């Protein structure tokens, strides 16, 4: 079976779909998306769904502030309800040095047009009556941050991309590619040969392996992250919440479940199985900061895999070695970043111009020894 598509995207998670949608909007309608798993089966359907614009570095903040703005209007953009809820995002300090770090971020956030405030404990308690005021020292409050349920966002991107002409298949793994010199000419998926002009890797945790398959080095490695949901109760936690000192994040969904997770420093695991350590660490973080949650039961606990890079930042842009290969990988905040990644990468692919907000995340930055240092993310250090 032979077909022609101008662009093949490997990976149908929120990154791949966002790129497909944005390419179609720029007029590239014969996009083909291939995914080895089932719809929403990867990290796009397993993450904590939190969205914020403000981080500790100008690079991350510039990029994610753009993405947060796109989230706010995404339902209108897609013509589908992505159910983004700008409930506010609290990054809460429990240690003095964390509070000092947050204090320095407010001006950076405001420079990027975000509503960002440093809250004293009294104000945090007003916003979140369930919080133990003795367990926290202060917080950065990002008013436009929030969350969006993954099934709504994913369904929205899928439906909108298909409407604009993209062809998207799940359970259709790419098995090989054919190259001519430094260019990929054909993508092979089982019995189908797809001649194409450009290829995008958006394969989540599997991106380094897909890189190997196409003969392009993609730095980093897969790593397991775990999350859990509590049995539903009526609204008791209002904001999206990050607890950097506990490597924990959480929010209460529109159907009452409290969803979140805490990371445990461990040897990176390549598995979708969970472990007792993350369960205990998440529960301990909840119990410390929101003691009322101690009475609630855990509904389920799951793992997802993401693609860790040396600085936890994404790899976004053209591949340095393969002429017609583009990459959107290495994501740890990929759900929040997807609207901006799709927007900026699609523009770069079509026009060749690299936006200054995505330039710092270039695929070859580690070769050039220019990692992006970001200190306000909730991720455990790995070796």
């Amino acid at each position: 079976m032979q077909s022609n598509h101008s662009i093949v995207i490997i990976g149908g998670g929120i990154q791949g779909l966002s790129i497909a949608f944005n390419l179609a909007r720029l007029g590239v309608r014969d996009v083909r998306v291939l995914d080895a798993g089932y719809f929403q089966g990867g990290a796009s359907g397993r993450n904590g769904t939190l969205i914020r614009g403000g981080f500790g570095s100008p690079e991350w903040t510039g990029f994610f502030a753009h993405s947060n703005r796109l989230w706010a209007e995404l339902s209108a953009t897609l013509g589908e309800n992505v159910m983004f809820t700008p409930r506010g995002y609290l990054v809460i300090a429990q240690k003095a040095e964390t509070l000092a770090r947050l204090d320095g971020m407010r001006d950076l956030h405001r420079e990027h047009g975000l509503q960002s405030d440093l809250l004293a404990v009294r104000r945090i308690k007003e916003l979140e009556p369930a919080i133990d005021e003795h367990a926290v020292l202060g917080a950065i409050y990002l008013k436009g941050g929030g969350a969006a349920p993954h099934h709504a966002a994913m369904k929205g991107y899928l439906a909108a991309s298909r409407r604009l002409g993209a062809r998207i298949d799940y359970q259709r793994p790419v098995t090989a590619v054919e190259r001519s010199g430094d260019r990929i000419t054909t993508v092979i998926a089982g019995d189908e040969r797809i001649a194409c002009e450009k290829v995008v890797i958006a394969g989540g945790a599997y991106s380094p392996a897909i890189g190997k398959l196409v003969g392009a080095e993609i730095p980093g490695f897969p790593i397991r992250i775990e999350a859990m949901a509590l049995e539903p109760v009526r609204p008791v936690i209002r904001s999206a919440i990050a607890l950097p000192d506990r490597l924990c994040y959480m929010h209460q969904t529109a159907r009452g479940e409290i969803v979140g997770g805490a990371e445990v420093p461990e040897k990176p695991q390549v598995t979708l199985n969970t472990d007792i350590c993350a369960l205990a660490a998440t529960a301990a973080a909840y119990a410390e900061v929101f003691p009322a949650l101690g009475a609630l039961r855990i509904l389920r606990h799951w793992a997802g895999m993401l693609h860790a890079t040396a600085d936890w930042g994404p790899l976004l842009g053209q591949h340095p070695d393969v002429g017609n290969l583009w990459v959107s990988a290495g994501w740890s905040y990929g759900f929040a970043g997807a609207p901006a990644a799709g927007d900026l990468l699609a523009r770069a692919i079509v026009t060749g111009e690299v936006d200054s907000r995505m330039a710092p995340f270039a695929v070859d930055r580690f070769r050039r020894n220019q990692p992006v240092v970001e200190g306000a993310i909730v991720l455990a250090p790995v070796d």
Partner: protein
Amino acid sequence: MRAAGPGCVINWNGEPLQVSAGESVAAALFRAGHLQLAATRKRHRPLGLSGSFIQGVLGDVDGIPNARLDQVTVRDGMHVARQNTWPSSHFDLLKLLRLVPARLVRGGFEHTRLMPSGTRRYLVWERLLAFLAGEGTLSPVPAAPAVVAGRRIDCDLLVIGGGPEGIGTANAAAHAGRDVVLVTRGSAPARFARLMGITETALDSRVTLLTAHEACAIYRQGHLVLAAPGDGGPAVAIGSNEIVLATGKHSLPPLVRGNTLPGVMDAATALALAAGGAACLGRVVVVGTETREAIAARLHSLGAAVAEIRAVAELKAIKGWNRVTGAVFEHAVPCQTVVHAGPWRSDPNLSFQASGDGLLRLSADALPAHVRMVGSAAAPDERIHWPGKHALDADVCPCMDVSAREIADLLRAGVTHVEEIKRQTSAGMGPCQGFPCWELMAAVIENAAGAPLADRPSHRGPRRAITVAQAAGLSGLVDPLK
């Protein structure tokens, strides 16, 4: 034979109520004629004690939501209330949501096209959804300890399941000098066997026994088990060289309209109620597979008024609005209770967790060599009868109001992957954790495809029990992987 002990007075939905002591709240309320304990989450249809669906026994006990009314023993002066009600559990207007046509609330609560995000009306709508969907009310002021220190047990053999098979396995190993732990959900081992009048073999005193503990999860390829008591006591991390799953079989509710009405229950639940006085069951219809005669005979000997015994394949519907009023075969048979005794199937949750593997999705694999299933758990499952078009009105997952028709419609629309069906309907994402919902869901898919389906969505631990406080108490008991 009435439950022993004097009666006590509890507060039910704001009113004092005299109940018999010594039983679970759910059983005591059933005996007092209060069958509806809870409601489905979207359409607020009545649910009660069934032995199948946990949603039916979720209630507010002394201000703590989502308490398991089938696990909490009645205490004088305790406050029990139906949750997810408004304005009060005594006078509940949310019951009217039942009149909303099922097709309007398909999918999760969030699958709405009416109020797009990015608008002001979405925020109001979301707040309303969160209120409607959120079940019980948790006070922001803690009503219970935030952390309950856990404990760690290491043993040579862990037996999960306290039936005769589990007891036999544990006793043999203890006799051979092995260090054995047995975990059972029941308040004592061999509960079902005793209810059936089978004389139990006593558990060897050298076996460490954990009663009223749910084995919630299995980690690290079957080397680490998490168990927790239903009363909120310390959770236990159990390291074991070998694990035996003696978890038995469970009767699945029939796939017909009315299968989740209060008054429909599995054989074990009916026997336990009958043992404390069978009058509360009223006229009983027993449906099931081969075991139905034995279960009916036992119910009869406990004093139950068994009106009809039929093969489950003959059942067309269960009648009733707030509770069971009849079972429909070729003619309707008036009754107050429908007891199902089959089809009997194993809960695959723990064996899945011990064997689950795969990078794109977890799938059940062969059990590792040190984990084995014994007794009826290891026997083949009985087939779920498909009663033709009557099945489409059946509930598959009552928590989320997922009917067989909703799943059949998704299949027709081309959504055929079990994981996608799970995500689109939320079936099996409530406290039962997929059992029995995914078994019923598989029956719908099998009927549409005309072929047996071994595939289920991946079972995720911890199933059925552990609280945040219990889980928090496990910190430091297990070393992270290095």
